């Protein structure tokens, strides 16, 4: 996407990214700004881990060409109010790209209702294989964007004088595609749909509430990302204990969490911490597993303090 926008942005154009992006939704845009002379601006957040919509509104102007933001933050679990983010951007004529990597496994997504210009999903976050994903784009935009890679399969006609490009979506699919990945991704989506997103969301909300309550009962434990609108992700630290230490003990107990900056260093900088321990639940987790996690965290705390 960032490559595609190289020919669209010019010096002085502005691009807004949120303060809670994954590095993968920061770095390509910084590179784009370096190529084009466009300016990157950041939509700030508050201590609950929620974007400040008022500040966002102030940042929007006729110079804003693109707004990029995640639907759900992987570091905090916040579900961002993308409906407002999209409609406000459209008022100034800016396009919006939503990174749905963390939303797709938890929330039913209707790109038409959202009226979003671009929406991305990573297959490996939604029971699918690695190395493949999905980009939704409005036809008018995809038509406007030039091919970002040249190769076989993406052409209409090739001569040594001139090449014309294939129709959508082929003009973006140079070379032999990841066919196996595509088929497996399709199977994963069928499976997720057979479980049903309403059922998933309802169950996960309950699991999140249960786990939040039980973890907060541990003295000295602080949760980062305390918005009311969250997917079942709990990012936390225990006072005076390094997240890596807790992660190591939990690992020994057979409990899988992630520790560190979660590829969102600006979020860690905002909270002035080196990282967090992140427990990420899904529809296949149970209350018993939450109990095991809570006991594990207690054991780690006792060993490490």
């Amino acid at each position, binding site marked *: 996407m960032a490559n595609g926008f190289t020919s669209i942005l010019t010096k002085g154009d502005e691009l807004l990214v949120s303060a809670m992006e994954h590095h993968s939704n920061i770095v390509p845009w910084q590179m784009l700004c370096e190529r084009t002379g466009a300016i990157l601006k950041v939509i700030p957040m508050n201590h609950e881990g929620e974007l400040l919509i008022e500040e966002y509104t102030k940042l929007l102007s006729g110079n804003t060409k693109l707004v990029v933001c995640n639907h759900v933050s992987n570091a905090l679990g916040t579900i961002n109010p993308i409906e407002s983010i999209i409609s406000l951007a459209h008022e100034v004529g800016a396009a919006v790209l939503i990174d749905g990597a963390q939303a797709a496994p938890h929330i039913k997504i209707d790109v038409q209702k959202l009226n979003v210009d671009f929406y991305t999903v990573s297959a490996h976050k939604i029971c699918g294989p690695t190395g493949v994903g999905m980009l939704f784009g409005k036809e008018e935009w995809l038509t406007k964007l030039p091919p970002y890679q040249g190769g076989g399969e993406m052409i209409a006609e090739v001569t040594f004088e001139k090449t014309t490009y294939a129709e959508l979506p082929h003009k973006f699919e140079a070379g032999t595609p990841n066919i196996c990945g595509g088929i497996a991704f399709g199977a994963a989506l069928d499976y997720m749909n057979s479980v049903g997103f309403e059922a998933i969301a309802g169950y996960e909300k309950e699991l999140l509430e249960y786990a939040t309550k039980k973890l907060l009962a541990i003295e000295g434990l602080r949760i980062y990302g305390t918005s009311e609108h969250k997917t079942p992700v709990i990012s936390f630290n225990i006072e005076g204990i390094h997240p*890596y*230490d807790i*992660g190591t003990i939990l*690992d*020994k107990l057979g409990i899988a969490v992630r520790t560190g900056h979660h590829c969102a260093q600006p979020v860690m900088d905002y909270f002035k911490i*080196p990282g967090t321990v992140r427990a990420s639940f899904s529809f296949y987790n149970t209350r018993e597993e939450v109990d095991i996690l809570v006991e594990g965290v207690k054991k780690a705390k006792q060993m*490490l303090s």
Partner: protein
Amino acid sequence: MKIEEIQDEIVEEFSMFDDWMQRYEYMIELGKSLPLIEEQYKTEDNIIKGCQSKVWVHAELKGDKLIFTADSDAIITKGIIAILIRAFSNQKPMDIIEANTDFIDKIGLKEHLSPTRANGLVSMIKQLKLYAVAYQTQLN
């Protein structure tokens, strides 16, 4: 004591435990006995690169022996560097340079650390040896 003897001693201590929880508890204990680096040496330059948590190491020559002090913001990392310092501190630089580090494998430390922490361990050993090389040239 010679480096090799200290290493054997550490291997023996670790072999007394039956499970990895106990070994971690012991490592945490060892971390508490780490000879701490003076605050003034906790600089960016003294941070070991390649570790996920922060580890500072300082080396100083006393007579013909090298003395290491260190600290970390993570307790288990503190335990790891404490084990290394116990083996290598208060030794002649040349002995540190030539020392074998097989004892790490004998304790089974590497395979029980996450890959990033195991890399950190390698960086720590490398840094201690680099200090020894630097001070050895000074002695020559």
